[in-house]
């Protein structure tokens, strides 16, 4: 395998942002610092972001196309705006920042994020919010397969994913906590709001789907629970910010039928070796 010279560059350069080829890509704009990411290798782009985060709180990345791992592991109250297609694992392990994407996000956005916000003015693909531990992800359009796989919660740390469009199969697979809300407001390629095997292997948390769902669409370990006034109140609270972000009418959304899906048991295998 070739040794990527850019890795060596990173090791050599103390401050990447002062390098002659990188500096012209960076400019201040109000209280933002703007980086032109066009054609930039993802390792360089991410190093630049980390360096800028030492000085700036608001970072805008333009001409992003597929660079992965943006803002991964970043801690603090940053505001990061991304224009373009964000690559795989956007905001993974991050703790606190707010990321707003004008464009789509590729697989695995919000992977194991602990706190913060990811807002996507576009669509997301598979394993969005994989193993998420806290914070929120709002997607304007569709999301892919296995969204929220293995999400979890602890006390008041309850992660939330909301999508305005449709979701693929295995929504909330092995879910151990948190909330997933699928609204199905736009159905670009399908009449089905979500795919099959909903919540397969779920043992914590809840999924709200804005439509009627038949029992046989659920995966093993999931069941349909009554959608109560309490649930409606909860959604009204949760969706207020979502609707404000994307300009949707909250009351109209809540008028529609919802299905709530929860685990059959919180310890599905508790007696596996004792029966």
């Amino acid at each position, binding site marked *: 395998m070739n040794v990527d010279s850019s890795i060596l560059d990173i090791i050599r350069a103390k401050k990447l942002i002062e390098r002659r080829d990188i500096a012209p890509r960076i400019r201040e704009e109000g209280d933002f610092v703007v980086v032109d990411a066009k054609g930039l290798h993802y390792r360089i782009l991410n190093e630049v972001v980390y360096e800028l985060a030492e000085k700036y709180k608001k970072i805008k990345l333009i001409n992003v196309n597929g660079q992965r791992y943006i803002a991964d592991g970043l801690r603090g109250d940053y505001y990061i705006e991304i224009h373009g297609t964000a690559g795989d694992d956007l905001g993974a392990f991050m703790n606190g920042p707010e990321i707003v994407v004008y464009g789509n996000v590729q697989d695995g956005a919000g992977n194991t994020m602990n706190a913060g916000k990811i807002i996507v003015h576009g669509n997301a*693909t598979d394993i969005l919010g994989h193993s998420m531990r806290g914070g929120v992800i709002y997607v304007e359009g569709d999301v892919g397969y296995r969204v929220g796989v293995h999400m979890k919660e602890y006390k008041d740390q309850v992660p939330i994913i909301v999508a305005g469009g449709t979701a693929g199969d295995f929504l909330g697979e092995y879910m151990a906590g948190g909330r997933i809300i699928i609204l199905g407001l736009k159905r670009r390629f399908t009449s089905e709001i979500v*795919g*099959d095997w909903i919540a397969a292997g779920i043992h914590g948390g809840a999924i709200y789907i804005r439509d009627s769902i038949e029992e046989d669409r659920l995966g093993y370990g999931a069941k349909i629970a009554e959608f109560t006034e309490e649930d409606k109140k909860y959604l009204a609270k949760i969706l207020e910010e979502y609707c404000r972000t994307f300009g949707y009418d909250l009351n109209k959304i809540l008028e529609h039928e919802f299905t709530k899906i929860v685990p059959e048991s919180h310890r599905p295998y508790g007696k596996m070796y004792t029966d």
Partner: protein
Amino acid sequence: MCGLAGILNRYGKRISGNKIITMANMMEPRYDGRGGGFAAYGIYPQHRDCYALHIYFDNEDAKELTEEFLKEHVLIVKDEEIPTRKIKEIPKRYITWRYFVEVPEKFKNNEHDYMISVVMGINDGIEGAYVISSGKNMGVFKATGMPRDVARLFKVEKYKGYLWLAHGRFPTNTPGWWGGAHPFNILDWSVVHNGEISSYGTNMRYLEMHGYKCRLLTDTEVVAYLFDLLVRRHRLPYELAAVALTPPFWKHIEKMPPEKKKLYTYIRMTYAPAMLNGPFAIIVANSTTMIGLNDRIKLRPLVTAKDDEFTYIASEEAAIREVAPNIEELFAPKAGVPVIAKLEVD
């Protein structure tokens, strides 16, 4: 974590290899440098009626034996070295040669099967000779390396084709060698693949019953042969071939309207040993069609989009966006449901 790319000019306009090379380069973090390759359709218009055999040889002996075998079984219209550049990233391990051949008159009524037996005869019978591609007016270029370097090695940017596939490899289960790089090809069919075909054993035994020999030490090979068997020999439409390879679950077939249910049940039962299991995304092409297909539960990424002229398929959205600023809606095909793009001219 391999990466796939495909591009079809639906009007048959030929473009240089630069676009597909850019698409492949956009997904470089997916590869580890142990396999890269390209398939190009429309690159040999001056020999469009000949089968273009791209063959790699370990040594001169293998080349001589192969040429004796070819002279015995086909008419060699022209042969020449596949041109390469000297590059430090990929030392040249094989003799790379191409032969433009015709099938003898007396075998013309069954020339496809005849050519397959010629290809299998070389791959199986001659030590150190590997037929890399065998279609008409097309060719595969592949080696152990990053796609960008494989492209430089074979001067891929200099060819002009209307349909291109690219692959960058991250081998996990089978060896990284020149022949094990993708695309895999037999006659008109080329396949690039991300993931693994866990049903390889079952598929291989089924294919061997139909005269195919799996000799390239990797699972992807079976996909090319299955398409040849189902679509060319059994004349299944692409949509039904996809049903055979990645059928809906029985619980979904149960709910279909009676006629459809009957058809899908027949296909599933008839082609049970052709079913592909395991996590995968593939792009398959022949001279008129490009097909993207995911496994039945979608364990690998695949996205597609089109603009006025081209249809694009790739593992990552970024690869499409980089070469196609004016695409209409981009989407990820559903599990087991093929995306089929066809040439709109003859």
